[in-house]
């Protein structure tokens, strides 16, 4: 189904792509007015991607890079968002099964580095000129022969003890501080390594992927409702964002139109999830900054949000409500009205809390200037969500690639220019206020009508589908390809935390001391489960 692409864009984008790629443009496809796919050859993949990425007028944002194994070859899919055109561009190339090589993207697109390493670990596809250090699989995994995401992999690899290796500067007075994977508090597992002189941090690195479960592998060959359950299990804190992104991917693929009431309810619940997540983050920041009272208050607000969730959906983390075509059950207007009362109470108390927090000098002294990350670094590493907006990077998918009610309902993007823990905290405070007022608007204008459409048609096989949501921690992408009989062929999740982890490493290495480590970490407050999958 190839439509003439001039329909997408009044000339400029398509013309410039065609001109740049020339004979390297093998094929193209326009799925919907704002999704463009182009196929290129392996040799030109890296160069073409770099050209698109560095076109200032396109305002390109890196979303994800993934690999799939087909019968005769591997395919790489690079997904970019051209903010200027509000268009999703997928650049694809085939990689030969005998050579398994392509020119690395990361020298030109640094944000792609982790994805290249992940693909190298799981598929054994080598990015020439890129970083080949293991990422997802730990040191004890035998290198170079076992690639678990390949189709026919079914061996079980015995577990061996193999220490992690970190490149740390040596010298008189320098020593290393190792933290984790079992932490002192109730935190997810990860191994953090600081190289310090006295209290000053010189270098910082992290070994993650301890909770890597191979969820993407579990999904292969399963019918999509079963994979929806798995999608909700990727992360506990943004379960609704994950299920929504997954449903949107299938709905885009099948061309399902969602009734307006379901769209509004989805948007309300997404904002509820944002509230809960941001309040948890704020509580954690206050606790890491040694302000126990404010931390306890924020935790109290959060608990009220979670109890409201429970009241609305019968699940504190909003699991089990989304389905392809809408929602599984309706939520009455009365329940929403009741929720609104709780929320206005929280809003009132939150304002008092905020005034107290922002006038406590001893606390502000802890967060100001801590964990600085510059605007350039944030852009280079492709940070997303509050972490990016705290360094004045202008990203928010609700505005850049609007979905659901956001096609009509504008979102004001809250940005701060400090680049430090204080700025990231301020973004969250501003977004809590914005979410509260947005929920009030959405509930007052809640349309009536049905909440789902029945959908069980056969989805087109081997066609890529993308679902995009601005989750509490930033942009979230679910990429999906179906097989015959509505079975999932390949499912790829790129969470917000995945992009932001390199930001944590960068920010910790700024001018910080060891006791700032937890505070920097909490100012991002990333989810390990989302990253590890």
């Amino acid at each position, binding site marked *: 189904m190839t439509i003439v692409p001039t329909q997408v864009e009044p000339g400029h984008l398509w013309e410039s792509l065609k001109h740049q790629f020339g004979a390297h443009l093998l094929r193209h496809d326009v799925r919907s007015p704002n999704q463009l796919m182009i196929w290129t050859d392996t040799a030109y993949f890296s160069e073409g991607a770099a050209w698109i990425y560095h076109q200032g007028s396109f305002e390109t944002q890196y979303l994800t890079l993934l690999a799939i194994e087909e019968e005769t070859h591997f395919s790489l899919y690079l997904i970019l968002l051209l903010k200027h055109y509000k268009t999703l561009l997928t650049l694809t190339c085939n990689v030969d099964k005998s050579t398994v090589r392509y020119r690395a993207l990361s020298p030109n697109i640094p944000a792609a580095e982790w994805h290249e390493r992940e693909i190298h670990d799981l598929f054994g596809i080598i990015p020439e000129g890129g970083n080949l250090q293991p990422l997802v699989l730990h040191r004890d995994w035998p290198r170079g022969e076992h690639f*678990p995401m390949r189709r026919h992999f079914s061996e079980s690899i015995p577990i061996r003890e193999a220490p992690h290796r970190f490149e740390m500067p040596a010298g008189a007075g320098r020593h290393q501080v190792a933290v984790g994977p079992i932490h002192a508090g109730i935190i997810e597992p990860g191994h953090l390594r600081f190289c310090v002189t006295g209290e000053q941090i010189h270098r910082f690195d992290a070994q993650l992927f301890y909770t890597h479960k191979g969820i993407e592998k579990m999904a292969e060959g399963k019918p999509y409702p079963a994979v929806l359950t798995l999608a909700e299990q990727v992360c506990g804190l943004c379960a609704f964002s994950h299920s929504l992104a997954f449903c949107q991917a299938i709905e885009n693929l099948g061309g399902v139109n969602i009734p307006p009431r379901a769209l509004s309810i989805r948007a309300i619940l997404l904002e509820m999830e944002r509230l809960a997540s941001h309040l948890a983050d704020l509580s954690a920041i206050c606790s890491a900054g040694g302000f126990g009272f404010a931390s306890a208050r924020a935790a109290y607000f959060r608990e009220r949000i979670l109890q409201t969730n429970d009241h609305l959906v019968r699940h504190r983390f909003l699991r089990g409500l989304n389905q392809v075509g809408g929602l599984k059950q309706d939520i009455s207007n009365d329940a929403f009205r009741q929720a609104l009362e709780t929320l206005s109470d929280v809003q009132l108390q939150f304002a008092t809390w905020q005034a107290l927090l922002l006038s406590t000098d001893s606390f502000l002294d802890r967060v100001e200037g801590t964990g600085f990350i510059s605007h350039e670094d944030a852009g280079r590493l492709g940070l997303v969500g509050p972490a990016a907006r705290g360094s004045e990077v202008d990203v928010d998918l609700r505005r850049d690639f609007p979905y659901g009610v956001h096609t009509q309902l504008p979102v004001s993007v809250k940005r701060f220019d400090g680049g430090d823990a204080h700025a990231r905290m301020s973004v969250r405070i501003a977004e809590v206020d914005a979410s509260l007022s947005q929920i009030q608007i959405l509930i007052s204008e809640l349309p009536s009508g049905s909440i789902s459409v029945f959908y069980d048609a056969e989805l087109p096989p081997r066609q890529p589908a993308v679902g995009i949501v601005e989750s509490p921690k930033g942009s979230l992408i679910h990429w999906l390809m179906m097989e015959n009989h509505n079975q999932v062929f390949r499912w790829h999740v790129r969470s917000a935390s995945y992009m932001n982890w390199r930001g944590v490493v960068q920010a910790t290495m700024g001018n910080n001391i060891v006791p700032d480590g937890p505070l920097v970490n909490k100012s991002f407050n990333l989810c390990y489960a989302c990253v590890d999958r």
Partner: protein
Amino acid sequence: MLTLLKMWLKAGRLTQNALEWSNSANAVKIERKQFLSLPFDERKALAQSLLIRHLDVGSNNAEEAELVALSSPCYDISRFGIDFTASPRHADALAITGPVTRHLKIAMERTYHATPKPCLVIAIGDGACYGEPYENTYACLGAVDQFLPVDVYIPGDPPSPREILSGLLECKRLLGQKTLS
């Protein structure tokens, strides 16, 4: 704030009751009379403290969120004499969440060996209890009880703070029995 301060002055502690919805079927309540009617051993066990080391072996962060919520002022778990410790060497019980992953199996076993015996092993959430809804893959090994002797199962997706709390109170009884025997 002012209300809180007033409450604080009146009650002597900074604890607010969470708003409670009508379904209190699994509410944790121990009435004084009921408590006094319990046998001595059990009363002694309930009155003792329980220190827990939390151990994430591959969960999806929901169970952790509920454990954190337990320490918030709404549930204030320390009024039951229950607390989370920083080291397994100070712990009476290990609270394990998530299906065991390949990368955490060794860390889990080491933490178990570092915990003084007799200790309880508590599996929290469907992942830890049954390995569900995940499947075994190259990186996911399944339920906790294949590797460690589990004493208490608190299933749920995730279990609510109330359910975890009632499970932990049950642990106090069990620990009393284990220490006696």
